[in-house]
């Protein structure tokens, strides 16, 4: 499979703490994207990082990419209860297809 794999599978933190989740993948990529899924809903695009970028920020989100290790991390700073969701990485190879990992389930406790 060309899927990315997120780690950890589940994460529980207190509101205000930072949350870090990781994604590893298997082959060379054009870019990597992170998505959020709230319970019972579709996925929502959060941030994209290209293969020639090492770090990207968007609000409270920080994404890093290490192509030599074939891994990426998503950091959510100052977490809120509303951040409770599942987070998926999607790897984009040449072509039109995305491959999604199995996700990290984040619970932020108020």
């Amino acid at each position: 499979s060309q899927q990315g794999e997120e780690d950890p599978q589940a994460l529980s933190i207190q509101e205000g703490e930072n949350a870090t989740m990781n994604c590893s993948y298997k082959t060379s990529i054009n870019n990597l994207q992170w998505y959020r899924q709230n319970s019972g809903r579709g996925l929502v695009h959060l941030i994209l990082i290209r293969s020639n970028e090492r770090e990207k920020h968007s609000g409270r989100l920080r994404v890093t990419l290490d192509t030599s290790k074939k891994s990426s991390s998503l950091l959510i700073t100052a977490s809120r209860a509303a951040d409770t969701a599942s987070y998926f990485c999607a790897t984009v190879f040449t072509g039109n297809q995305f491959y999604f990992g199995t996700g990290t389930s984040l619970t932020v406790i108020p």
Partner: protein
Amino acid sequence: DAGITQSPRHKVTETGTPVTLRCHQTENHRYMYWYRQDPGHGLRLIHYSYGVKDTDKGEVSDGYSVSRSKTEDFLLTLESATSSQTSVYFCAISDDPQHGYTFGSGTRLTVV
């Protein structure tokens, strides 16, 4: 989700019956995708389309067919539903896959 609608939202069907799920978009995006989501497997690509009448298989296409006769509609058909096809099905659209997808709200299908 704005611009993309899946129907039905929920369906229960019997083993062996054909089922068609519909994805409708108003964004005029070229690319449309069908994924299924199952616990422990994440999202897996079933089929995708890169234009009217242009489709290709994904990683779990067996037992599924698709059609796209108009830009706005992408149909997923389970030719003879089996219990293993019980899942949540998501449609996604994109004008450029390198920029990301927009997902529909999903169809929860139960095959009994």
